[in-house]
């Protein structure tokens, strides 16, 4: 399943990555090479095979409902590129 330049742009947009116009060809070519390579998987008969999403297949362990963390906005905001009045700040979000 080869992708074209438009598809590459669309995928890049979904991932919020910019692909410069002059890199588009190269990116697309490389992308298709990788896809062609992983398509070898198609040879394997996986009928009736359960997918394995993780090696950890035990049941999840649940946490007790206790408040441990909090009142640490200084630490939460310590690495913020922009902050004010205890908030993270970003350019205006408009919908």
């Amino acid at each position: 399943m080869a992708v074209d330049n438009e598809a590459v742009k669309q995928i890049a947009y979904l991932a919020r990555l910019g692909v410069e116009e002059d890199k588009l060809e190269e990116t697309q070519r490389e992308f298709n090479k990788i896809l062609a390579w992983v398509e070898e998987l198609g040879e394997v008969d996986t009928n009736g095979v359960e997918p394995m999403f993780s090696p950890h297949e035990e049941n999840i362990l649940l946490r007790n409902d206790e408040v441990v963390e909090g009142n640490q906005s200084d630490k939460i905001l310590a690495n913020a590129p922009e902050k004010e009045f205890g908030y993270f700040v970003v350019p205006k979000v408009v919908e």
Partner: protein
Amino acid sequence: MSNLTELTISESLEKLRAKEISPVELTEAYIKKLEDNKKYNAYVTTVPEKALEQAKESEKRYMSGANKPLDGIVLGIKDLFCTKDIRTTACSKIIDNFVPQYESTVTQNLLDDGAVFLGKLNLDEFAMGGSNETSYFGPVVNPWSKDVKLVAGGSSGGSAAAVSANMCAGATGTDTGGSIRQPSAFCGVTGIKPTYGRCSRYGVIAFASSLDQAGPICKDVRDCALMLNSMAGFDEKDATSARVDVPNFESFLGQDIRGLKIGIPNEYRPDGLNEEIANYWDKAIEMMKEKGAEIVNISLPHTKYALPCYYVIAPAEASSNLARYDGIRFGNRVNGKNMEELHINTRSSGFGKEVKRRILVGTYVLSAGFYDAYYLKAQKVRRLIKNDFDEAFKKCDVILTPTSPIEAFAIGDKKMNESPINMYLNDVFTVSVNLAGLPALSLPIGLSKNGLPLGMQFIGKAFDEKTIFKASYQLEKSVNFKRI
């Protein structure tokens, strides 16, 4: 003593406990070595003052007899582990100024056992790479390099190089597709990727959550056992952490391996396998036989598909794991005229080429219409790969294979950089283990005709690191590899 940094962890501990040397003395020796070996670019952040403070505390504990299992041992930490108040970057521009306000469980465990941290070690950006060349801070130079600068392997290249060049006694690494084992092999050191769930992932910057696993890189097998014992254990902060007891790994070293069944998978000897590597493999098999082990031929029929399987699953998980780097709460931001532009500008400028490539592939294989054909298919093939191991382990106790199909290559090697796939192919012997969640250890087997280290790998059953340690220790004794 000029050769303090050449001591193994267990040797240092012996001298520290006998008060022949002091933690401060030891730390100073490493700080000196660090300065001498800057050319290897192994560290991206060093904290010598902090290390000396820790060493002084350690000294007090030795004086009062309250010393802990790894007290005064000087370690380097892969810069993928979050360390409180010490810059943690994943060697990416996008968070090159990030200072965590929390400590990863693994590094906390090491601190609790008295370890001294000298600094943060170089790696491929977000651990994506097999040569350390994708690091924002530039590639690590393999200490075994002669005329040409060679790669240290990756992603834990800084860890392997630092241990190899005596810039720390041991280092933490992480292994998602071979990132502990391959650089260990390239740099002539020993590293173990434990069973998935053995070490907590809390505070370890995620690459591919179902594959990532932390482990130690050390000078020898015993050190790996000591360090892993400190790093491992159930952690309630990681829902995938295993509720399994951690045995005293050191106690298995030196145990007799007569009758131990060692599996040799046919599929790991493809046509065109490097002859030197094939010969060393045979040599290792002979050595194990001499120790009384029984050699069993096994088959891992889906081996061929492990690489494509890995290169679907790992990017898929990564594409999602790396979505949090959006320039809002931490890391670098590149503004734009609206939020969308801010996101795109921040991520386009902050991520390197290989990381972007994997995010794109991962985004694609998870998209509706492609999910079943790529992602779901890969997870099914993964099950078959795991089933292969389950079958094989009915016939043997541990599996022996080469770690890597090649030796360390030149930084900027033309063929490797021609296509990403050429680089991916180097992971052929390591990725299956991550897909199946199994433990595996790489140790040096000897030098190539170019004078470069080569590694062998023992793969064990899930949570059976002890058998790996038992077998590796015996092979190590037979090999008697000469470190730098």
